[in-house]
């Protein structure tokens, strides 16, 4: 708290508060009550997509990292190719390839149209979740590769010497230490993933970004929805950063 009581910071904070008050008073916010339920729904959908894709992407990244770090060539090669392709092309392109490409391919097969999954495949969100999951897995797989390689060999050799089965070694020793190494970057990657979620609005998923675009189109108010949107994303980013800081504190310090 003391760090904020320096004279120049007090002046700057006062200026910022003044700016916020000016925004609240002189800009148009009369649309807010009407769209508030829709915005809450949008925020909920954004967070939901973020959590689901981070969890699924992480689950996919662990085998990807493992395959690249120690796998035989027929596993390491495809894993490396997957990561290179995902990291080398824009997410928007991947999203549109899946949505428009698969979306135009599926209706051609009658058995897909008659299957139980068809009601889901006609909606946009499965494609959004798929694209974001693959993207997160691609970036995180590369990080997990380094994390798996960074675990000291002695730890694994000790486990082997104790006669631990390979899967138990992975579960008890290798994976926990690798995740611990990847944890600081995982927080940053989650923020990047949050910043990627508004792209799903381009394939008609109604996340918070899509809601604000709709306000803009309905009312012709340009800046206010965008500013509110920026604030919403900053708040979510702040929560993610704080949560990961707590998580890092709880995980014991680096084993050397």
């Amino acid at each position, binding site marked *: 708290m003391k760090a904020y009581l*320096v004279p*120049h*910071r007090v002046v*700057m904070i006062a200026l910022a508060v003044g700016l916020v008050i000016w925004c609240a008073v002189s800009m148009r916010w009369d649309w807010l009550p009407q769209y508030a339920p829709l915005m809450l729904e949008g925020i909920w959908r954004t967070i939901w997509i973020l959590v689901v894709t981070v969890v699924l992407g992480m689950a996919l990244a662990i085998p990807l990292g493992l395959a690249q770090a120690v796998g035989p060539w027929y596993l390491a090669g495809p894993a490396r190719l997957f990561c*290179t*392709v995902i*990291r*080398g*092309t*824009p*997410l*928007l*392109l*991947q999203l*549109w*390839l899946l949505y*428009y*490409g698969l*979306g*135009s*391919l599926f209706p051609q097969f009658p058995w897909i149209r008659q299957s139980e999954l068809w009601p889901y495949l006609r909606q946009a969100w499965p494609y959004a979740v798929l694209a974001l999951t693959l993207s997160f897995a691609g970036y995180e797989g590369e990080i997990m590769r380094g994390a798996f390689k960074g675990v000291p060999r002695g730890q694994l050799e000790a486990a082997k010497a104790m006669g631990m089965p390979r899967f138990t070694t992975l579960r008890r020793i290798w994976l926990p230490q690798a995740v611990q190494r990847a944890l600081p970057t995982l927080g940053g990657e989650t*923020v990047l993933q*949050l*910043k*990627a*979620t*508004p*792209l799903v609005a*381009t394939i008609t998923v109604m996340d918070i*970004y899509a809601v604000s675009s709709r306000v803009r189109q309905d009312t012709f108010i*340009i*800046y206010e929805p*965008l*500013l509110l*949107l*920026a604030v919403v*994303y*900053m708040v979510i*980013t*702040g929560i993610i950063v704080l949560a990961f800081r707590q998580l890092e504190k709880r995980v014991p310090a680096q084993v050397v």
Partner: protein
Amino acid sequence: MEGLIAALGAGPALELLALSPPGWGGNLLRGLANSIQIALGAFGLGLLIGTLGAYGKLYGGPVTRDLLAVYTTVVRAVPELILILILYFAVTDAVNQTLVSFGYDRVQVSGIAAGIAVLGIVQGAYATEVLRGAILAVPAGQIEAARAMGMPPVMLARRITLPAMLSFAIPGLANLWLIATKDTALLAVVGFGELTLETKQAAGATKAYFTFFMAAGILYLAVSLVSGRIFGRIEAWARRGEPNVGGGGR
């Protein structure tokens, strides 16, 4: 060769990708040229902002430092797509209001200029952090020695700090360049005709979604692979004369 293409059923796909008008290949390449142009401009502008920002963060007064901290934090916390929209509207508005107040007519800001300005501001925030770290990695003794010799600050930057920090900054800058090439795709959302938007239009017109999106993906991948090579060369050049620290005495 032609028999092979026909056997694979790739004939129609190649026809669609032909360079002259019945095919859409020319449009894709024009989009790619636009993308690269914007990425280059944004990367250059980002480097400029980043250099000034890094110096401001390291040697500036308390107010400059705090303002730069706000700039880098906000840009890194808000999605690029939203920054692009806010800045796109704000830049266009600001230019037009200045023109009107000086008695000129309103103009339509060109997509390329707006794209470069917007992505440059975004890149600048990341470049500030990369360059700040790199400048901090330069041994303090070298900078102190130059000061002790009475070198003026600009000459110090030009002769000592910037060349010495280059080898530390190149990996981060290479990453930023890749982000710049991929972020140009976001301009498709504001309707600028770069590679991704051209691809979507071509795909929508011909219904050959897979063909075009795959082709665009290959183009993007080629750009990132080629630039990886180029940055490898630049890094080797920036590291010339440095002792091989990581080699472990081999």
